[in-house]
């Protein structure tokens, strides 16, 4: 139980097949059981948490982590943390415009053939902190800070894993564990040694809504934000899903009625 964490991954139709796959972070410690607003059949993204999470991403994470597949405008699209019903098209949303302006985008070439820098527009994608993978590794002691766009879905139990990882750094490795140069001890990470130094400290950011910026709070907020970034259409998908399920249920009942009516006089 303590070392091998086996997960039931897929239960396929009428209990025909139940397969188990080892969580590949099998050496990592038990994950914390944190419940997030977006989990479950009715879960939605907590907007305030998403906005706070964006602040954490912008002020802390984005120094090393890219999020190249997400455009800035997505923040203001339906389901996004800054969605405003008054501006269904996010490129007209003043909040989104202001957020975009804060980013510096390299554009070009201009008529002289040179690249130039300009303030961001909502249609731009979040700029990456490093020009390429090699530059990112060189600046981070050989470790590559993973891209945030899909990170929550790229890890087994993504939200719990990232939340646990962010809140489980330990100042000193336990006895018998020799930390390699530049590594930090985190029992949740496979192998226990992680290149990323503890990113969050009490008060790393100052929340404008007055929420105390504890490490747990910031971790939970940034996970909410990252979960949205990885699956921005989740809310509309679940909402549509319920309508489809109800429709199919009614249709199935009617179809069963038709079936019974057709077969009414037949012995079978």
């Amino acid at each position, binding site marked *: 139980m303590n070392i091998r964490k086996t997960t039931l991954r897929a239960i396929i139709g009428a209990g025909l097949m139940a397969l188990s796959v080892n969580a590949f972070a099998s050496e990592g410690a038990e994950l914390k059981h944190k419940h997030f607003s977006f989990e479950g059949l009715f879960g939605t993204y907590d907007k305030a948490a998403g906005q706070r999470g964006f602040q954490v991403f912008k002020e802390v994470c984005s120094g090393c982590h890219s999020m190249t597949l997400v*455009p800035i*405008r997505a923040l203001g*699209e339906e389901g996004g943390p800054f969605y405003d019903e008054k501006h269904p*098209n*996010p*490129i007209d949303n003043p909040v989104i415009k202001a957020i975009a302006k804060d980013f510096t985008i390299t554009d070009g070439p201009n008529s002289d053939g040179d690249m130039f820098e300009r303030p961001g527009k*909502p*249609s731009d994608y979040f700029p990456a902190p490093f020009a390429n993978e090699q530059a990112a590794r060189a600046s981070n002691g050989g470790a590559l800070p993973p891209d945030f766009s899909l990170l929550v879905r790229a890890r087994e139990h993504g939200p719990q894993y990232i939340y646990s990882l962010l809140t489980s750094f330990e100042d000193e490795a336990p006895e018998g564990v020799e930390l390699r140069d530049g590594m930090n001890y985190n029992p949740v990470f496979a192998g226990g040694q992680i290149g990323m130094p503890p990113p969050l400290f009490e008060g790393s950011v100052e929340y404008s809504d007055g929420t105390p910026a504890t490490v747990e709070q910031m971790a939970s907020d940034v996970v909410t934000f990252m979960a949205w970034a990885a699956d921005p259409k989740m809310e509309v998908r679940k909402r549509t899903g319920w309508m489809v399920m109800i*429709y199919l249920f*009614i*249709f199935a009942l*009617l*179809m069963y*009625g*038709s079936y019974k*009516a057709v077969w*009414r006089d037949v012995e079978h």
Partner: protein
Amino acid sequence: MSSSASTSAQEPTRRDFIYIMTGAVGAVGAGLYAWPLIDQMNPAADTKALSTIEVDMAGVEEGQQIIVKWQGKPVFIRHRTKKEIDEARAVDAASLRDPQTDDQRLVPDMNGNLQPQYLVMIGICTHLGCVPIGDGAGDYDGWFCPCHGSQYDSSGRIRKGPAPKNLPLPPYKYLSNTLIKIG
């Protein structure tokens, strides 16, 4: 369900009802299913995000023209000279193929005034879609389409050649004295 003999005459209608209901609900479902299959071909969110652009015209010198791309089309922004404006205004609009005064070719700024020095048009010939040559080309100090010889004056109105209409104007508005939002 009653099994008495008298009901047998009614039952076909009751059965028909459930068939009709099932068919109707199925047809509605098929229609709803078809919509995503059709709508996916409409412009995607990233395309729509580029449907409007902002252009600062302050950098365009008098007598110069810049071309910006908007929704995949070239937009001519010309800073007209006094001479070009006067020529454009001197024409009797009623005599033109596509009658429009020069003022009708402009959009008022935030204070409600026209800025006749700035002419903003979609640079696509109304004949067969070529991009006309600018910088005072042609007999009317305007634009000349190399494909079939259509000539536009300094207000972008058709004066000669096969094109039926004036060069079209994009939807745009002034955000400041020189900043416009196209789209």
